[in-house]
């Protein structure tokens, strides 16, 4: 069994090896070892990119393997970020509040502590009351469970309702997009209890690690992201190989036929939808402490569409395709919008890439879908494997 799993996935070993080499190289060249060739801000960018690769793999499984074009997986990613962000904010603020209250002539009551924390966190939205959803924010373990549980449950309920009613194809896509929009709009309200448009911020300051430099913290998160990506890759490679993988791919190619063969299609779809949502949540929980801030704009419908685009450009139906797509497009994006690309002077008009990058990106989707339906990964296959 083990043998056949590896035999089916020669690319997996390659991927893990490459990732390991890359991770070690970055760590050695970072500011932590004193070499400093790679700045802390770039380590953070790389760490975040690894998290994006992880969620892209999940997207690839749900779309490229199972044929469900979900335009809502970035919402699960965001929920993961919010869940961990709540603890990060609460614990950091609690530390500050306890320090400042320690100097008081009489010890504070629990209500006073909670008021002070609430005021610190929600003062910015003009409130000091703790909303219900913050009930467990003081407990890292519970919030970590939330990272997995909330996206999982949401995906389970949503998927159960949708698959049960046989909502498929583009309808499902639009429905998932509506779900994302509803969630983003909900979070945008200040009444949501998650600080509205402000979101949760200061997440890069990890409670308990106040004395540790950001250089070290960024490397730790980078390593954690790499491990999570490797684990996610192996996990999904295992799922899509074997019998389960065959059924899932069968559903993608002809759902009715698989159903007539006696498989309970809805359960398979639900399983894939929920599992990928959970992985997306975990990726988000690793991403946002590196980004430092999460706000509802992050889970606007456009983000989920970009996710699909990464997978499409990278190449659907192959896990490394998703990784290539996410890395390639997100790094290229930040290079172009960050002013890294030189402007092109046409004499009568200067092409500034900050303005024209989105046009280029948009048109490249069209080109990829029209002419390279297998994406970059497909071209890669072509080179490596020589078509038979």
């Amino acid at each position, binding site marked *: 069994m083990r043998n056949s799993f590896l035999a089916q996935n020669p690319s997996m070993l390659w991927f893990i090896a490459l990732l390991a080499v890359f991770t070690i190289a970055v760590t050695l060249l970072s500011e932590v070892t004193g070499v400093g060739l790679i700045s802390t801000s770039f380590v*953070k960018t790389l760490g975040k990119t690894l998290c994006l690769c992880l969620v892209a793999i999940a997207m690839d499984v749900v779309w490229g393997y199972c044929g469900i074009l979900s335009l809502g997986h970035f919402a699960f990613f965001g929920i993961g970020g919010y869940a961990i962000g709540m603890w990060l904010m609460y614990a950091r603020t609690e530390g500050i509040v306890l320090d400042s209250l320690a100097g008081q002539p009489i010890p504070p009551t629990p209500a006073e502590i909670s008021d002070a924390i609430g005021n610190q966190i929600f003062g910015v939205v*003009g409130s000091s009351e703790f909303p219900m959803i913050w009930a467990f924010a003081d407990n890292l373990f519970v919030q970590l469970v939330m990272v997995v549980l909330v996206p999982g449950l949401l995906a389970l309920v949503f998927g159960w309702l949708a698959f049960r009613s046989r909502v498929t194809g583009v309808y499902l896509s639009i429905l998932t997009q509506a779900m994302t929009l509803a969630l983003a709009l909900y979070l945008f309200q200040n009444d949501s209890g998650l600080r509205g448009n402000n979101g949760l911020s200061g997440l890069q300051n990890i409670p308990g690690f106040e004395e540790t430099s950001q250089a070290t913290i960024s490397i730790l998160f980078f390593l954690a992201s790499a491990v999570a990506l490797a684990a996610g890759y192996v996990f999904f490679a295992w799922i899509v190989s074997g019998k389960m993988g065959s059924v899932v791919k069968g559903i993608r190619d002809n759902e009715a036929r698989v159903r007539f063969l006696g498989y309970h299609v809805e359960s398979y779809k639900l399983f894939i939808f929920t599992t990928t949502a959970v992985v997306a949540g975990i990726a988000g929980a690793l991403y946002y402490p590196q980004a430092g801030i999460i706000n509802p*704009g992050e889970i606007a419908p456009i983000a989920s569409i970009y996710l699909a685009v990464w997978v499409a450009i990278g190449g659907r139906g192959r896990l490394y395709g998703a990784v290539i797509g996410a890395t390639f497009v997100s790094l290229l994006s930040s290079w172009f919008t*960050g002013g890294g690309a030189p402007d092109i002077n046409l004499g009568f008009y200067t092409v500034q890439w900050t303005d024209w990058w989105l046009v280029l990106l948009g048109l490249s989707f069209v080109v990829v879908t029209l002419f390279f339906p297998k994406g970059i990964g497909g071209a890669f296959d072509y080179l490596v494997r020589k078509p038979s």
Partner: protein
Amino acid sequence: MKMKTSALAMAVMLGTTAIAAAECADPIKVGVLHSLSGTMAISETTLKDTMELLIENQNAAGGLLDCQIEAVVVDPASDWPLFAEKARELLTVNEVDVIFGSWTSVSRKSALPVLEELNGLMFYPVQYEGEESSRNVFYTGAAPNQQAIPATDYFLEELGVEKFALLGTDYVYPRTTNNILESYLIDKGIAKEDIFVNYTPFGHSDWATIVADVVALGADGKQVGVISTINGDANIGFYKELAAAGVSADDIPVVAFSVGEEELSGLDTSDLVGHLAAWNYFQSAESEANDAWVAAWKAKMGEDRVTNDPMEAHYIGFNMWVNAVKDAGTTDVDAVREAMYGQEFPNLTGGTAVMLPNHHLAKPVLIGEITAEGQFDIVSQTAEVPGDAWTDFLPDSAILTSDWKGLGCGMYNTQTETCVQLTSNY
């Protein structure tokens, strides 16, 4: 002969630049952290141009500490996490001496932890909701008591408004400002039932019902006034619907805190005439400094461009920073910060802006009526109002004060006489 002289002149020139370069051991770098793409680009690009103009002028006047100032412009692309990333890049990779940047509160709060961690210095030029005072940020825009409170006073005293509709876009600035105003109005004896609050999403366009609700507020015989913290594009639909409902500024005056010259430029303002805006600066302010500034701006950017309040904030902030660096003799952040306190600089509306130890400015508050040309008729101008980091009108923050010079703390609890924290709430 001729060639000789020019060669000589060349040599002299080279010599002088060499000397200047020798004296200028450490080039002075100013980071500009304003979005040049994305949704905020329209507002923030103007501020980037403002910074470039200010730096050009300063360089033409001989630079600073014998060095030319170099602007390092980056684009955080209206993406809030990118503000943190770019701020880190500016401070560690480009090693800038100071940053001028941010527009939205959330972008400032995104950059704050980085600024505090790396002890950077940022000047923030936009009106905001207050409730913050970071050691590493100078707030040159208006705090609520420099914009919202005086405008409300104007409504109460000059227009006799007895019933208030607080309309805002649903984000932090309107939320906090309206909270402050609500408790201020209740202090002033306005009943809670006479305050109507409504929040709409960004870019809201369906205003018919809300306008009808506002008009219906007048049913109990009280004069109604609207305090608008509606942001950006949504204003257009709002004023259109007001005009369609036949409501003029004489019936229900609207005072806006986010509508300035830039927002009005290129719009048909006939529906808006007579409505009000409150700022610390209007292009129509009458002073020689302002005439010169507007002329310089138009010369650089074109005749049809306008100036606005955040531009003046950068104008004051940059000049104060230059003077503080001259006083300190270095661009070292801690030394400059010390030198900033008490810095005075003439503002463009006449009078003098003073940097207070709570990192806010003392500035006059102006109220203008919108004219058909998209400019403002200034109908009220106060004396300089000192910016208040922590509002006096919310019980939780009334007890807080900020004094970085005397107390060395931006969040000092006056009741317990302790410093709550040295870093900020993000």
